[in-house]
């Protein structure tokens, strides 16, 4: 056991940080490779996750831009410069933004240039764009990879890998994650998985093209890209499994003295439940991936029934398999996975709302219980994605009922977050703007989940743009906005400077307006019966001609949305070097992550923190300061 240190007030911590005379100082003098590449420090790993995930997000977005071009102008040659030039320009700007010396910006500038090259490759070539016109097969690749990249390589690594890694140990007062080496393996496994996905664009036949859902038998008879997809997924799953074990052990075992479960910041709770979802939901997909791999390379028939005739040829397989089996195994993961997308976002929003309302979160306990209940229920609703696979009355009754039940904790969580605003003193900081916007946006996404969760309406809405609209509202102006909020919020803790507020507000308002123009029309199209995954955007649909003009609206809005992201990217890199200096606790926050120097030293805390109270003691009556850090001893501060 560690020797017990004397209690100190947070102020003394700050003072000590300036001198930096601590005995563990030497550990920071690691070589470049150990410090930045094969680091075992959770903060560095969190940043590695963050940067990689943001780049993947951007790449997933670029794929989407190519798709949206096609949807708005089906059958017209693509104006590829339109995509490549801005990306290359961003690359150049970012490269030079911090002057000519090796730095993160330079590396990322180069990566953006690389991405521009990749997009050039993808928008040319006779296998993809003969005569500049997109082939339907390539549209399918884009769709499948956009979904896969956004979810598995973008949002989850950002929400769990980056924020979880960076923030959780700090918020619970731990020196690091419980298993630092394992943490490094998680990141590199993710990296290899991502690389595999990228490389798959270059194999014959291109990348996976059977949707992110990879339904059999289509996926089994698909080109080599699908094999790459499976292998990539196995790496990503391994990464998530190791990561989730690490998070759970860290949260359970490394909590600071006095930090009981009911004193944990809401974000930590969200990460804990998320980790359980990853831990127990991913293995079945891993099993399914192995089975699909066997079907593809060893000629088995797990997912192939007898008597298949593909392109006029009878398939020479043993048969007897079940396509539905794949769907069960896939959705057993993929439904919990959507809560993996939303829970860290809810956690971030909770932190930011508490901080910027200057009062505790309302109904902390009900928030915690709701999140646990949500996590539990999310394992038994999965077949609401499968109502139209031929479900009888009993099984559909079960899944409709569980789906309605799971909406209740979401309602409770959202309600509690809104009610938290009552009696507040709201500061409209940039992170707060994003966090506030999250609430109604998630509301729209969540509410539109209800008709989908009821089987009869799903007959009309399944596989239409209504579904696309539903989940993009939860993942894009929902989760993505929450992640932006988190970036603006924790940026000062990471680099010691705040991001520019004016640019931040431009980014917010621009994105907020544009993104609604991207996704709101999807409901209209969906209700009118326009199917998803159509490479021509529904041109052949006689009954939907009246809503097709919206394709253009959405595409233009998507480009405007993209343009406002440039503001973010510039702000991000500019602020790294030139942002306004921030002290250790610029937002006057209460949780432990803000009670340590910026950037936190190796080992995170100068002295073992001790916690005396709940996470959000803002505006405590009778106190002089409007915030009382979790580690401030009871006696001090009461001097008034």
């Amino acid at each position, binding site marked *: *056991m*560690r020797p017990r240190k004397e209690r100190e007030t947070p102020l003394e911590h700050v003072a000590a940080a300036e001198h930096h005379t601590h005995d*563990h100082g030497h550990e920071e003098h690691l070589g470049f490779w150990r410090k930045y590449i094969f680091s075992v420090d959770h903060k560095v790993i969190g940043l590695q996750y963050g940067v990689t995930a943001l780049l993947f997000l951007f790449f997933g977005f670029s794929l989407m831009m190519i798709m949206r071009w096609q949807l708005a102008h089906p059958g017209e040659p693509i104006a590829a410069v339109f995509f490549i030039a801005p990306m290359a320009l961003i690359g150049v700007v970012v490269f030079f933004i911090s002057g000519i010396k090796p730095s993160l910006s330079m590396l990322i500038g180069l990566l953006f240039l690389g991405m521009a090259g990749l997009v050039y490759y993808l928008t040319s070539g006779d296998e993809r764009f003969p005569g500049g016109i997109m082939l339907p097969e390539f549209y399918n690749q884009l769709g499948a990879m956009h979904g896969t990249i956004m979810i598995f390589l973008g949002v989850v690594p950002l929400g769990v890998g980056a924020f979880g890694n960076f923030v959780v140990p700090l918020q619970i007062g*731990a*020196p*690091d994650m*419980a*298993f*630092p080496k394992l943490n490094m393996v998680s990141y590199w496994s993710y990296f290899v998985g991502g690389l595999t996905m990228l490389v798959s664009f270059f194999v014959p036949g291109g990348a996976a093209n059977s949707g992110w859902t990879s339904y059999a038998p289509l996926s089994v008879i698909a080109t080599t890209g699908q094999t790459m997809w499976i292998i990539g997924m196995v790496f990503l799953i391994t990464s998530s*499994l190791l990561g*989730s*074990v*690490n998070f*759970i*052990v860290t949260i*359970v*075992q*490394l909590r600071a003295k006095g930090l009981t479960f009911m004193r944990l910041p809401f974000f930590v709770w969200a990460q804990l439940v998320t980790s359980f979802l990853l*831990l*127990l*939901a*991913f*293995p*079945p997909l*891993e*099993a*399914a991936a*192995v*089975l699909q791999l*066997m079907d593809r390379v*060893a*000629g*088995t*028939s*797990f997912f192939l029934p007898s008597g298949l005739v593909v392109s006029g040829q009878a398939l020479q*397989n*043993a048969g*007897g*398999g*079940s396509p539905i*089996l794949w769907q*069960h*195994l896939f959705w*057993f993961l993929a439904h919990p996975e959507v809560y993996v997308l939303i829970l860290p976002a809810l956690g971030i929003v909770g932190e930011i709302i508490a901080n910027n309302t200057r009062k505790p979160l309302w109904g902390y306990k009900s928030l915690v219980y709701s999140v646990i209940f949500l996590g539990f229920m999310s394992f038994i609703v999965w077949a609401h994605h499968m109502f139209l696979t031929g479900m009888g009355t009993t099984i559909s009754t079960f899944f409709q009922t569980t789906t309605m039940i799971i909406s209740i904790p979401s309602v409770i969580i959202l309600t509690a977050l809104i009610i938290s605003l009552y009696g507040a003193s709201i500061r409209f900081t940039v992170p707060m703007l994003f966090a506030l916007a999250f609430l109604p946006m998630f509301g729209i996404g969540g509410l539109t989940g209800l008709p989908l969760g009821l089987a009869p309406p799903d007959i009309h809405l399944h596989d239409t743009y209504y579904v696309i609209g539903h989940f993009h509202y939860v993942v894009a102006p929902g989760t993505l906005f929450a992640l932006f909020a988190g970036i603006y919020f924790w940026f000062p803790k990471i680099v010691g400077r705040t991001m520019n507020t004016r640019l931040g507000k431009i980014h917010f308002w621009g994105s907020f307006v544009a993104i609604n123009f991207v996704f709101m029309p999807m409901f209209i199209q969906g209700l009118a019966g326009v199917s998803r995954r159509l490479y021509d955007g529904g041109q052949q649909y006689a009954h939907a001609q009246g809503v097709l003009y919206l394709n253009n609206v959405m595409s233009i809005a998507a480009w405007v949305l993209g343009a406002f992201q440039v503001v973010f990217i510039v702000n991000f890199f500019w602020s790294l070097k030139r942002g306004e200096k921030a002290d250790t606790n610029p937002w006057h926050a209460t949780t432990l992550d803000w009670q340590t120097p910026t950037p936190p030293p190796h*080992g*995170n*805390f100068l002295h*073992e923190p001790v916690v005396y109270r709940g996470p959000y003691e803002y505006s405590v009556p009778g106190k002089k300061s409007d915030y009382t850090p979790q580690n401030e001893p009871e006696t001090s501060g009461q001097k008034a």
Partner: protein
Amino acid sequence: MQIPYTVTPRSDTGLFNGKLGIWLFLASEVMLFGALFSSYVLLRTGAPTWPRGWEELNIPLATLNTAILITSSVTMVMSWASLMMKDFNKFRRYMGSTILLAFGFLVVKAFEYGHKFELGHFPSTSNFFAVYFTMTGLHGLHVIGGIVVNSYLLGPGSKMWNTEPERFTNRVEIAGLYWHFVDLVWIFLFPSLYLL
């Protein structure tokens, strides 16, 4: 600050980090094999015909393998008990036997596979063989993983006994938990594939 509870248990949870970690990992393994068993049951109940295990597979060999794996579980737990009794030499003997038995298991398995191939039975032959090869193959990979871990603990990893005996004992316990789980999976695989 050092990472706490790597060796000694935390008082409120009663666990050291590795112990909780390995159990969580095993929980995920339960779901992995659970999915495979679920697939097996689904495919089998949906199939018009399905061979009984004894019609296609070699029960005596599999029984031998079951015995081998059970024995290796005992030697594994004994190797840990030896460390608890501070008898390092005994630990080495038991751990060595565990590894040898694991190799024995794989050798028997290889004979079984080889024989199946000679008869022209491949994973693609039928869903029965697809399930058989996939599940035993994945289990086999877990056996290989166990061999790697145990060999490390017997070889280079055992130096820790001299510096941090308690931590080393914990590691052996954790490796043991994994190894028993591999045994446990086989306890279900054996009847469901061979005897039913």
